[in-house]
């Protein structure tokens, strides 16, 4: 089962030892179509974007105007209607997928954790990648050489334990961190 969630932020518990928790809000969603394998077309709300294609889908599935995004995912529902949140109450472990924060074009220190050179004493080697290969043989750079480039803004999936679930407000508290900035939207999938 999958759900669409919004990352709220992090907090901690007062137990001994204290657990760092990430809070996620489970968003309301409408199931529009379900097939036998419980793969469904689901509508949810993000922003106010509307166009003729969205309006047409809303009319087709008789949705209200705020449900303006569509996606396919695994659901617990048998029938069309509100997304069934019941399985979240018994969930112990979740796979959480978010787009990580984008760092733009990043150097090798930030992107691959290279050590970098000494700052002073005329070393003239600070944050550069250094040598990238051998000599006349092989005469080329090895494939997969770690170099500067675009870093972040890719889907990152982590497994987290569920600390608590507040069904009334739809707030999930997970142990540990998840990728992405606060306010970002992602998905959780029940593993156990």
């Amino acid at each position, binding site marked *: 089962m999958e759900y669409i969630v919004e990352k*709220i*932020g992090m*907090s*901690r518990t*007062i137990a001994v030892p*204290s657990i760092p928790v990430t*809070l996620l*809000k489970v968003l309301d969603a409408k199931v529009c179509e379900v097939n036998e394998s419980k793969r469904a077309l689901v509508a949810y709300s993000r922003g106010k974007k509307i166009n003729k294609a969205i309006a047409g889908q809303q009319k087709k599935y008789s949705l209200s105007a705020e449900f303006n995004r569509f996606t396919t995912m695994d659901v617990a529902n048998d029938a069309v209607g509100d997304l069934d949140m019941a399985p979240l109450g018994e969930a112990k472990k979740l796979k959480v997928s978010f787009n990580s924060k984008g760092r733009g074009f990043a150097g090798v220190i930030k992107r691959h954790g290279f050590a970098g050179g000494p700052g002073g004493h005329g070393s003239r080697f600070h944050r550069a990648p250094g040598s990238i290969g051998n000599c006349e043989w092989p005469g080329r750079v090895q494939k997969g050489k770690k170099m500067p480039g675009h870093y972040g803004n890719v889907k990152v999936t982590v497994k987290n334990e569920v600390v608590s679930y507040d069904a009334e*407000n739809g*707030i999930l508290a997970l142990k540990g961190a998840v990728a992405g900035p606060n306010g970002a939207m992602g998905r959780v999938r029940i593993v156990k």
Partner: protein
Amino acid sequence: MRNKYIEAFEKAQIAEKNVPDFRAGDTIRVAVNIKEGEKTRVQNFEGVCIARRGSGTGETFMVRKIGANSIGVERIFPIYSDSIDSITLVRRGRVRRAKLFYLRERKGKAARIKELKK
């Protein structure tokens, strides 16, 4: 302002905690649960609160006392942690700042804090 959901999550945990209202300069006694093997016992730590920092469940305070051989001992406690049995306010102090780190450079009489009288 913090997010209302984070605040609600933290408030629910703090709700049962009974912490007296204290600030830097107050003398307080902290009863700490200590686990030794299977047994747990309570140990008191009494001294001047020299700082409070943080908010919500992550809020902590610093207590400074003069230990054996007049060596200064400072401990940092999370206010709402389950490892703290109780906090008692012993004496209110009259101070003019929120962080009393200047006490670390003071010794003996110079490190005293006047009692706050209403």
